[in-house]
């Protein structure tokens, strides 16, 4: 489910803005670290869960407004270099602020321990994350499918010129899409922090996975990104249960296998 969240955010940015966002993983890491810090500072996990992704979204807003906006005409190579540079800056900034060693962050007391599901014993917090991420994906999907703004965003993926000819400020749309994508990355990071702990390298690992999800989902296909995220998550969980060392490789192996059969991705048309 977390992979679906990451993939959805990235698919939105890729689709609407048409840029390679190599800073997506860094935004994920920022979300995680912000959660840990604010939760420690104010002592309230739930409030921190609200604040941290908003921080990531604000950062996304600033990145788009100050940087990416000037690069739409510049070609993918420079856009890539820019977002890659941002990713380096952010991950180094994390090391400067929080130190190079990873550490763990405990879930709130209510969600510690596990529940007996009859056939297996499952940690409460993981259940919570599954439900929360599922609801977020659903909410985002409803927003994109059922509201006016969502419709404009989807239209932006299909045909940017037409959208701006209809009198819609395309720049505001781009900013909003980037901020929303950053928000989704941030909240995925925030939710992940108590499960996997925090380390400066967490962003890059997630970035690769998000790319896989988008590549599998197909061009501008948001629903495809969700499905691909679920597929990757399940495949990884199954492999991890039997052969732990291969669990990070399997994601990419699944992608390679799918692309051999369907070069356009699972649900892609092009």
């Amino acid at each position, binding site marked *: 489910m977390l992979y679906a969240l990451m993939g959805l955010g990235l698919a939105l940015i890729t689709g609407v803005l048409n840029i390679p966002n190599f800073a997506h993983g860094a935004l994920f890491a920022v979300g995680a670290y912000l959660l840990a810090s604010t939760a420690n500072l104010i002592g309230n996990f739930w409030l921190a869960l609200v604040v941290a992704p908003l921080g990531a979204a604000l950062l996304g807003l600033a990145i788009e407004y100050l940087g990416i906006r000037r690069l739409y005409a510049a070609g993918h190579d420079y856009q890539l270099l820019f977002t890659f540079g941002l990713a380096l800056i952010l991950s180094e900034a994390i090391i400067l602020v929080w130190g190079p060693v990873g550490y763990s962050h405990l879930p709130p007391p209510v969600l510690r321990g596990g529940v007996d599901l009859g056939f297996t014993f499952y940690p409460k917090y993981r259940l919570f994350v599954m439900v929360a991420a599922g609801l977020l994906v659903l909410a985002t999907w409803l927003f994109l499918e059922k509201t006016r703004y969502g419709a404009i965003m989807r239209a932006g993926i299909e045909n940017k010129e037409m959208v701006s000819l209809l009198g819609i400020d395309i720049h505001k749309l781009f900013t909003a899409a980037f901020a929303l994508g950053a928000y989704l990355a941030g909240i995925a990071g925030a939710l992940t922090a108590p499960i996997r702990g925090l380390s400066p390298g967490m962003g890059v690992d997630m970035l690769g996975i998000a790319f896989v999800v988008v*590549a599998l989902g197909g061009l501008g296909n948001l629903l495809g990104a969700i499905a691909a995220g679920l597929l990757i998550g399940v495949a990884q969980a199954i492999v991890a249960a039997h052969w732990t060392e291969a669990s990070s490789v399997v994601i990419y192996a699944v992608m*390679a296998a799918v692309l051999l059969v369907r070069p356009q991705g699972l649900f892609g048309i092009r």
Partner: protein
Amino acid sequence: MSRALIAILAAIVVLPLVVRPAIASEIWIFAIFGLGLNLLLGYTGLLSFGQSTFFGSAAYVAGWLLKHYAINVFLALGIGVAVGAASAALVGYLCVQRSGLYFIMLTFALNQLFYFIAYQWTSVTGGEDGMPGIPRPDFLGIDFGEPLPYYAFVSALFLLSLWIMKRIVESPLGKILQAIRENEVRAEALGYDTARFKLAAFVIGGAFSGLAGVLYAMLFGIVPLEAIGFVTSGNVVFATLIGGSGSLYGPVIGSFVFIWLSESVSTLWARWPLLLGVAFVIVVLFFRGGVVEAWARFSAWRERKWRSSRQTG
């Protein structure tokens, strides 16, 4: 002899007097790596963000053979070139079917695949600690263990690579690749199987990366995990772009600037990737077009200043 060639020959002679031979060697090794990328990026218009896959794979395989079977230097280089080309064929086959953003993301994702294999396969690669103890065997009585003979060896291979790359981009194959860059649909309409040509560019680029990877492993005696990591892929893209991806010599200038700067800064501050990131952002926002364009703008500015001072004076 062209002026560019004279400049390069002069640089090869002068460089080891100015910087440590190891850095000087690294510059030309990185230039070979950049030449390979530039065939894709500059001449075919394919932005590959996974070049370290081929660089690292070749370094690991040849390094392993050098370490455990004490193979001949040239055999190691040949194997490196072959491994680079083979891994590029594998990656390229999956990637050339997609274009634009998806192509970039796939090259990166497959780079991650190779990275995680190297990371987990600790019995061979040493995982995070890298693969140390790679020898530099003698050849015909020349001791490559000494820095200067090895530098000469690297320089000679760089010149050879440059010559081969020049022949490639001026050949019919090179012209077709440029046609694909300019207008892929038209190239296809003219009867060229563009996917096959793009794959060919990939394989050639991979072979150059492989050569660079083996030379790198022998230079430092170790294959660090970073050699196959995405930052290495990003660095070579950056170096090629700051040099200017449009020309044959762009990556050479870029590698010169990049290695020199990064080697001098990285010894000062452990967090130097932060500065690297800042450099990326500044270059992209203000100096697109690389060193060559920055110089042109500087000259124009100087000219304007000179004129205005004449008018007022």
